[in-house]
């Protein structure tokens, strides 16, 4: 069986398998979602109209035994940014699509009635099932019901109440290995795009799937070995390493100590109360209360940064509390209590709300006087407004910029309309350049990976210098390539320091594709993805003025370093040479 595309027409309620075009052969994950969106979606269309499309694509090696590669990209035109979007998650859903040789699911059109549908996908067919009875409900209960109905071997993607009201802060939910609705392609409001089409869930059953085709087993196996060696020997990624011991929240203390952890809606970069919500504290707590740690988001991950956070006594499992979520719903709102943050995170997951955007919008709501900073109960009440679909809830569900405008707030931490993640660009300027220039809107994952030296692309940037464009560009190119391959970005920590690790990544790609790529091809591959995305954004009306940080980052010094973001516009424009 060759690779295929599943095209889902929500206007006609038809789904058909198509041949995977030969010229797409080297495309997977983000490379494929962005290529299909750029090719098939009018950049000027309304993101919630019939002309937008939603594309799900597992990475090129996803579904194989390549370690830490269970990732999926979801793409479309974003209702939050108005530009192209790729959101990424780690889930068994991705691995099943890979093994069923479904390179992409393309959802298009728009169901005319008010009904919601569930699409069931098996190895040789599809079925539309009315899903109204699962709407207007929290996803934790709904996922339980769906697993009861479809069996515990399936994987599920879905959207929640935040998407039902077309909130631009709504994400696309995937199951974790326990079946909890906790792994999110959260960013950019793609949940609302899915709901706007009348599609509520996709349930995948891989029975009879042939597995990922591997054209050169020898190259593939060699790559798996090299990458596994790198991941299991590097201090950050190995068993007992920082990610495995403390999860991504290991960054709480690091970034706070560095003075770059935004507090109180980006008004300070350090507050020692943040230490109460650190990775070290969380790991201790999980041990005490009977959650799970370490844990993986998808089988085959050797890093295992994930966990299952619960209430005391092991009750009400939430799933993972990621660094970005803990920061957004915690320190950014002056909340320093893991139980409160856990409950806020569970509520976001339950509503289908992006946790980063939720924390950012709560921060501006607090600044706008809707509630006090530090008021955890009040924050839960606000999220309940979304659940109850009230007018206030509808404002909040549309994200940080919309909320700020509604409540007259001028300190608005967004780029291209998307809320900033957990690193203040005044303290960590290199990340600020990426926030400003990525086609995705403020996104930390857009440039998280890989040093320039080992990329073979030249240009080792002096990190102290405000000349950050080379560094940011190379990070963004490498990241785009990792997203396309289907690897988790956290492999970057190991392949940065261990060259055989990066070779291993390239070997596995060669194995799957029967190609002969080298490490030097990575940057060019990433550049193609970014070029495609930038061309879409340009046609949608974006100019270099959109590649800027909000004014307050340039004017308001951030304690404790009391620095502003001082990278020049010329330097920002040099990233893509405009």
């Amino acid at each position: 069986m060759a690779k295929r595309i599943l095209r889902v027409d929500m206007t006609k309620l038809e789904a058909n398998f198509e041949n995977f075009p030969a010229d797409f052969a080297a495309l997977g994950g983000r490379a494929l979602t962005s290529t299909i969106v750029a090719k098939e979606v009018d950049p000027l269309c309304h993101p919630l109209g019939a002309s937008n499309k939603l594309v799900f694509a597992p990475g090129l090696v996803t579904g194989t035994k390549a370690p830490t590669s269970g990732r999926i990209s979801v793409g479309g035109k974003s209702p939050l940014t108005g530009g192209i979007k790729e959101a990424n998650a780690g889930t068994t859903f991705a691995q099943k699509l890979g093994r069923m040789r479904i390179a992409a699911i393309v959802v298009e059109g728009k169901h005319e009635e008010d009904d919601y549908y569930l699409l069931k996908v098996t190895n040789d067919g599809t079925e539309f099932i009315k899903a109204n009875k699962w709407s207007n409900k929290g996803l934790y209960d709904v996922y339980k019901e769906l697993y009861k109905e479809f069996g515990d071997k399936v994987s599920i993607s879905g959207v929640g109440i935040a998407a039902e009201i077309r909130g631009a802060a709504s994400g696309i939910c995937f199951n974790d290995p326990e079946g909890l609705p906790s792994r999110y392609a959260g960013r950019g409001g793609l949940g609302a795009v899915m709901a706007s089409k009348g599609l509520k869930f996709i349930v995948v059953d891989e029975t009879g799937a042939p597995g990922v085709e591997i054209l050169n087993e020898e190259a593939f196996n060699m790559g798996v070995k090299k990458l596994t060696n790198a991941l299991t020997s590097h201090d950050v990624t190995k068993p007992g390493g920082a990610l495995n011991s403390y999860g991504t929240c290991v960054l709480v203390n690091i970034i706070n100590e560095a003075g770059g952890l935004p507090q109180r809606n980006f008004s300070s970069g350090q507050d020692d109360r943040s230490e109460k919500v650190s990775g070290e504290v969380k790991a201790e707590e999980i041990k005490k209360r009977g959650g799970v740690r370490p844990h993986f988001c998808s089988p085959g991950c050797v890093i295992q940064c994930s966990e299952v956070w619960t209430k005391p006594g092991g009750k009400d499992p939430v799933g993972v509390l990621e660094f970005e979520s803990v920061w957004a719903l915690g320190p950014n709102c002056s909340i320093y209590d893991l139980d409160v943050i856990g409950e806020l995170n569970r509520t976001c997951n339950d509503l289908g709300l992006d946790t980063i955007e939720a924390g950012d919008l709560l921060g501006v709501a607090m600044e706008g006087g809707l509630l006090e900073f530090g008021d955890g109960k009040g924050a839960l009440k606000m999220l309940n407004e979304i659940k109850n679909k009230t007018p206030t809830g509808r404002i909040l569900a549309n994200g940080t910029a919309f909320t700020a405008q509604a409540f007259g707030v001028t300190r608005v931490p967004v780029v291209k309309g998307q809320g900033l993640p957990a690193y203040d660009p005044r303290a960590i300027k290199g990340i600020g350049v990426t926030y400003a220039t990525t086609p995705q809107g403020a996104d930390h994952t857009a440039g998280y990976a890989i040093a320039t030296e080992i990329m073979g692309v030249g240009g080792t940037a002096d990190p102290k210098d405000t000349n950050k464009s080379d560094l940011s560009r190379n990070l963004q190119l490498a990241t785009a390539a990792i997203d396309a391959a289907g690897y988790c970005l956290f492999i970057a920590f190991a392949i940065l320091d261990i060259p055989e690790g990066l070779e291993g990544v390239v070997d596995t790609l060669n194995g799957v594709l029967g190609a002969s790529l080298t490490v030097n091809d990575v940057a060019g591959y990433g550049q193609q993805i970014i070029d495609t995305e930038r061309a879409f954004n340009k046609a949608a009306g974006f100019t270099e003025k959109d590649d800027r940080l909000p004014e307050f980052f340039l004017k308001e010094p951030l304690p404790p370093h009391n620095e502003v973001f001082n990278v020049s516009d010329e330097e920002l424009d040099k990233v893509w040479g405009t």
Partner: protein
Amino acid sequence: MTILVKIFGDLRKKIEGYNISDALPLNLQIESNGIDTIADILNKFSIEKEETYHLFVNGTYSGYNKKVKDGDRVGLFPKNMSLLYKWYFERNEDE
């Protein structure tokens, strides 16, 4: 006169007399007498340089020879927490 030394992650296990479940992080006020640089602090606690990676003095990413003085705040992270920051900053050093 003292220096505040904050010890994070697995490095806490190196310091005797503390239960790491309660030391989140381990905050120690140490006498500044005889302490001139970060290396001196590491020495005092018998921590090898190779066991550390991120070092901060008052929030500034620093090297082993960075000078420290009364009232400073020093953050020490173990090698297995060497993520992210090193890509964006160069160590601040004296000498």
